[in-house]
């Protein structure tokens, strides 16, 4: 009996391994008259929320728009439809890496769109470089973007780094302080993960240099759901400005807690989630004056048209930070294909050096990075408007102090 078991096991094992290797490819992907585009975005797991708001809707909207208009234009003027190969990366980098290998070596897709998240984009960067695909990393905030762009020359980093956002915020607050609207004390909390740490370590020196005093400066673990203690400490700290480098659950939780405890700082800043379309609902309609990361030029007709199209296709408006940039990155890709075709090297060079007309205006990358970004936005009259850099075209004037909840 025992012997039998052992032999069956080995047979079964080798059989399954063999079948793994020869698993049939997804049929009918690489037809000549279509362009196959693959992506592996989180449908399940902790990254699913971020991907579900910023990444997936924009991919789907773009593919739909392109295909309805007859497909992508090739350099010779012909049109080719997009065919999508989509997988779930289960929010796990191990699965993600394998899926990218599948897209590149088995499905042999023409182009690969990046997943959501900084860690995910870094995880696939060496692979994308090895297979030669251009990588338009949008949802990756990292101070090391210049380094990565140099390391993998077909990677493009389009959302800036933590210190950019921190510097923008400090700029907004110093202006208000110099005008005498707020005092020079700041209460700041940050989520303990790569994103929060990048922002706080950029913000500390910037605040100090601008003459601010950080009277409360703590980090909280990812997964914290109760902010009553933190907010009551911040309230008692005597700071006029409350700053949170937070993820959506934290941003929402702190907003609600501040409202219910009647904490009314003159400047209230949260990070990811503040620019989400659901934010005003979470703030119970009292979002006016809340500042957050990102922003769009709400007066631009292109943005308004994009918002309307997104709302119609997806059912809700896009978020006002990375969504428009995600969509713009896809428009860049389409225009680059129209100019140079599908050759990866030519495509990467074109994306790196070309100028593109997108929903966020004219885009030209610097050293493979998008630097012409909005750092701080604010809810004003029901729209999330960009307020910093203040000298950029389309910037709105900040409302400080924020009206009471």
């Amino acid at each position, binding site marked *: *009996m025992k*012997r*039998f*078991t*052992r*032999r*069956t*096991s*080995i047979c*079964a*094992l*080798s059989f*399954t*391994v063999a*079948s*793994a*290797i020869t*698993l049939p490819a*997804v049929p009918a992907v690489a037809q000549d008259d279509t362009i196959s585009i693959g992506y592996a975005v989180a*449908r*399940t*797991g*902790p990254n699913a929320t971020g991907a579900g708001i910023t990444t997936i809707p924009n991919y789907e909207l773009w593919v739909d728009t392109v295909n309805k208009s007859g497909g992508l234009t090739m350099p010779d003027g012909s049109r080719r439809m997009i065919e999508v190969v*989509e*997988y*779930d990366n*289960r929010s*796990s*980098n*191990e*699965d*993600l*890496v*394998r*899926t990218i*290998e*599948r897209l*590149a*070596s*088995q499905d042999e897709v023409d182009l690969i769109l990046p997943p959501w998240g*900084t*860690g995910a984009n*870094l*995880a696939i*960067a*060496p692979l994308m470089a090895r*297979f030669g695909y251009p990588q338009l990393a949008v949802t990756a905030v990292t101070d090391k973007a210049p380094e990565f762009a140099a*390391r993998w020359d077909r990677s493009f980093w389009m959302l800036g780094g933590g210190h950019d956002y921190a510097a923008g915020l400090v700029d907004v607050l110093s202006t208000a302080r110099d005008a005498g609207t707020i005092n020079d004390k700041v209460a700041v909390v940050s989520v*303990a*993960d*790569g994103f*929060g*740490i990048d922002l706080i*370590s950029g913000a500390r020196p910037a605040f100090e240099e601008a003459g601010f005093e950080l009277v409360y400066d703590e*980090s909280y*673990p*990812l997964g914290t759901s109760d902010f009553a203690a933190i907010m009551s400490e911040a309230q008692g700290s005597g700071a006029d400005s409350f700053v949170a480098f937070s993820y959506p659950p934290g941003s929402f939780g702190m907003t609600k807690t501040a409202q219910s405890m009647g904490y009314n700082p003159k400047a209230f800043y949260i990070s990811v989630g503040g620019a989400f379309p659901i934010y005003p609902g979470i703030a119970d309609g009292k979002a006016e004056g809340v500042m957050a990361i990102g922003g769009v030029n709400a007066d631009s007709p292109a943005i308004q048209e994009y918002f309307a199209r997104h709302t119609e296709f997806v059912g809700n408006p896009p978020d006002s930070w990375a969504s428009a940039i995600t969509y713009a990155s896809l428009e860049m890709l389409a225009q680059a294909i129209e100019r140079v075709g599908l050759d990866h090297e030519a495509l990467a060079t074109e994306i790196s050096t070309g100028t593109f007309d997108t929903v966020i205006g004219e885009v030209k990358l610097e050293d493979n990075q998008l630097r012409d970004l909005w750092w701080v936005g604010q809810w004003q009259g029901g729209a999330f408007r960009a307020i910093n850099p203040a000298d950029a075209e389309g910037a709105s004037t900040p409302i400080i102090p924020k009206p009471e909840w």
Partner: protein
Amino acid sequence: MTKLIIPLLALVALAFAPNFVSAYGLGLLIGAATYVTLASAWALFSGHTHYVSLATVAFYGTGAYCMAVLNEALPYWAVLLCAGGIGATMAALVGLSTLRLQGVYFVIFSFGLAELVRQLITWYEVNVTGTLGRYIFLDISARDIYWQMLALGAATIALTAWIHRSRLGMALRVIGDDEAVAAHSGINLARVKLIAFVLSAVILTLAGAITSPRYVYVEPAIVFNPTVSFLTVIMALLGGANRLWGPALGAVPLFLVFEWLSTNFPDSYPIFMGLLFIGVVFLLPDGILAGIEKLRARRKVQS
């Protein structure tokens, strides 16, 4: 003799497999080899003792973290050595204090342990080093990772085979049957359990260290993903945790089914996976191997 030859031939065949597969095929091989290693290492301790440990990811993640922290300071082999040492120390400390817990208390404890390690590393990185994400820029190809993982997996199974025959394995089996009996028959409970626990932990830690260069960016939330612990347990139990080839036989098909489901049904794969699990529990209660044996026994009776 055949008992040895077939596995050895299979191992040689698997070692040459990367020459015949695409990058994706290699990715699958790495994934399968990793889970075979994890499940076998888990079963090394838990298979006979029936201590269901959910601390797999505590060690696996620690291994990945060691690689991330040390890869620039030390040569590769030294990092692996360090990782193994850290895993062993951690397991010894934890084991000394916890192995007297039984049943569900041990399950929950091991689960809490993984979370505690994750929280402590996060806190340390945030407050002491001031950086959270770490990068692993090592010049290691996917093939190298595969070969290392294959070797580790083979070593684990060989070690398990050896332990099954040794006094240690005997002692573990007695402990699994009844701890009181084991104690009365002169088995040093604490020592036996601790040895098995540490051995298993070292392998888990090494597995984490070996795979980590594949995903470049390491962050506690990424490497201490509790799903890994659960998957390991399920795979081992599916195959049959107290048999030599059971964990491997559970890990490979389950891994492939997950892959197949998530590529073909990206929207609804959790539903299928849930149904699959429930189905396995109801239809193959003792694991695949026992199921096959039962089926064969029934046929014998009929004929």
